[in-house]
């Protein structure tokens, strides 16, 4: 069996490990645009602030490909898929035949067509190690930095360069920060925490026009900068599939086995669309846990297994300048909220199910909440009053506790 994986990040690692849990022998070839060993993309902000380094940010050990008997073709771009001959054609013209193929091409930063954007003197995006290295080289203690986009990528970038620049201003068209992750109250809390640390925000504003070193905003303000980071969002890399006739411009659709509409072609990670069981809707869940679990499921199925991944939900865990933030699920339903100084807890339930939560500050044991959402545990089977107080296994029945902790087998 010949396996080919296009992409060399989280989903690829999941796929390799998934394949090898079933098939120890088949040939695995990984085609990677980036010229390096597999590394963790979200760690690029920690690379900038010195909390990790090039060695520690490797997502798998140096002997990863060797141990898994996989061949890495790094610095190679897959140009085309020939579905008739079942081969991947590289930029060099070389053809790599496959029996099973995984598309794990991730996403690229979206650069909005703003007037003058090409005239910015020092313009960066913040997705890859090369982005981080370029920013690392350019930034000086006198640099005034403008970040366009107050989502996770923009804010993690701000954290990465915090203390290394003269000032950091973050602009977003949304009225609150992290609009996809937080609600209004928690966003305000985090924003005020970050402002006290020294970050500046201009919200509900877009950039109308750039010059080499300034941005004219829709609210009339002008922001002068030495460095601009564009972090307004990402677009899934789906060209390979679009080119062979798939309707995948907004993300690749797969079944629960992670196979696409084309036989023997699977897809996983940020380039795919997931079904969010917490909201019942389809969306791109560009999250590392999701990418790994999709990749692993795809890998098992590529190797002849019968695996399904059917409980994807949005989830995010991060710290911003020391403040822990953990969220999961969706926020439509009945709310239960507790707030305090840099503390926020919102639990959302609907129709006897736990739907989502936002925890800031005290994030202890949040996974108990996450699991209730992912497993769609009916709330009348647990003591929800205890769950409201804090995440605890005491909320489960005695039999369930014995199954979880006492070695009682599930019947």
């Amino acid at each position, binding site marked *: 069996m010949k396996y080919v994986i296009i992409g060399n990040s989280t989903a690829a690692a999941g796929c390799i490990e998934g394949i090898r849990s079933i098939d120890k022998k088949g040939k695995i070839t990984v085609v990677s645009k980036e010229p390096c060993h597999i590394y963790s993309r979200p760690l690029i902000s920690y690379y900038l602030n010195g909390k*990790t380094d090039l060695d520690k940010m490797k997502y798998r050990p140096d002997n990863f490909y060797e141990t898994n008997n996989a061949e890495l073709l790094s610095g190679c771009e897959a140009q085309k898929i020939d579905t008739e001959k079942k081969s991947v054609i590289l930029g060099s013209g070389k053809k790599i035949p496959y029996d099973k193929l995984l598309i794990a091409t991730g996403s690229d930063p979206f650069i909005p067509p703003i007037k003058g954007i090409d005239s910015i003197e020092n313009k960066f995006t913040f997705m890859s190690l090369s982005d981080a290295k370029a920013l690392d080289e350019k930034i000086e203690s006198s640099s005034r930095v403008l970040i366009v986009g107050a989502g996770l990528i923009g804010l993690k970038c701000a954290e990465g360069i915090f203390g290394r620049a003269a000032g950091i201003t973050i602009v977003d068209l949304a009225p609150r920060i992290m609009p996809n992750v937080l609600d209004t109250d928690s966003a305000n809390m985090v924003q005020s925490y970050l402002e006290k640390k020294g970050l500046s925000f201009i919200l509900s504003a877009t950039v109308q026009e750039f010059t080499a070193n300034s941005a004219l905003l829709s609210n009339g303000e002008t922001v002068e900068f030495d460095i601009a980071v564009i972090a307004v969002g990402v677009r899934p890399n789906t060209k390979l599939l679009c080119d062979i006739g798939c309707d995948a411009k907004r993300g690749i659709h797969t079944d629960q086995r992670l196979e696409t509409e084309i036989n023997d072609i699977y897809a996983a990670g940020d380039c795919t669309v997931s079904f969010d069981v917490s909201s019942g809707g389809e969306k791109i869940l560009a999250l590392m846990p999701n990418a790994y679990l999709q990749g692993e499921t795809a890998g098992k199925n590529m190797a002849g297994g019968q695996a399904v991944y059917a409980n994807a939900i949005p989830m995010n865990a991060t710290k911003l300048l020391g403040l822990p933030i953990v969220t999961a699920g969706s926020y439509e339903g009945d709310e239960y909220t507790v707030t305090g100084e840099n503390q926020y807890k919102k639990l959302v339930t609907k129709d006897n199910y736990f739907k989502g939560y936002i925890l800031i500050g005290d994030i202890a044991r949040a*996974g108990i909440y996450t699991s209730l959402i992912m497993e769609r545990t009916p709330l009348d089977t647990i003591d929800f009053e205890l769950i409201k107080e804090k995440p605890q296994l005491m909320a489960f029945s005695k039999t369930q506790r014995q199954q979880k*902790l006492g070695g009682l087998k599930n019947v």
Partner: protein
Amino acid sequence: MKRIYVNEKWCLGCHLCEYHCAFANSGKDNMAKALKDVVINPRIQIEKVNNISFAVSCRHCDNPLCVKACIAGALTIKDGVISIDQDKCVGCYTCIMICPYGAVMPSETGVAQKCELCSQNSLGSPACVSGCPNGAIVFEDRG
């Protein structure tokens, strides 16, 4: 493989397992010195409501979500034991977000910590088990 199992019928809720855990992972050789005036942050934690109590620590799952979700590749499973490379960990708490047992927690340094069955410290076998005065925590191979 051998795992830690708890029997809540026998748990006194005395928290001694927590103290033995904190001591075992303190790197010190004297329990009194290691724990005196210290707010302990053990890797095993007692849950107690009314007269029911039990200890919770890492289950060392066969299908470990924490290992799969870790963004840094800092959590690994080897011979069934899940351990964390605290040097690689950046303290994002994705593992805390995903562990269905609530058995991973922040350490004093801000990175994550978890039960490693005392395989990485000088004891070599779980201190909570030998330290439980009522046999409520056992370390057994139940398949």
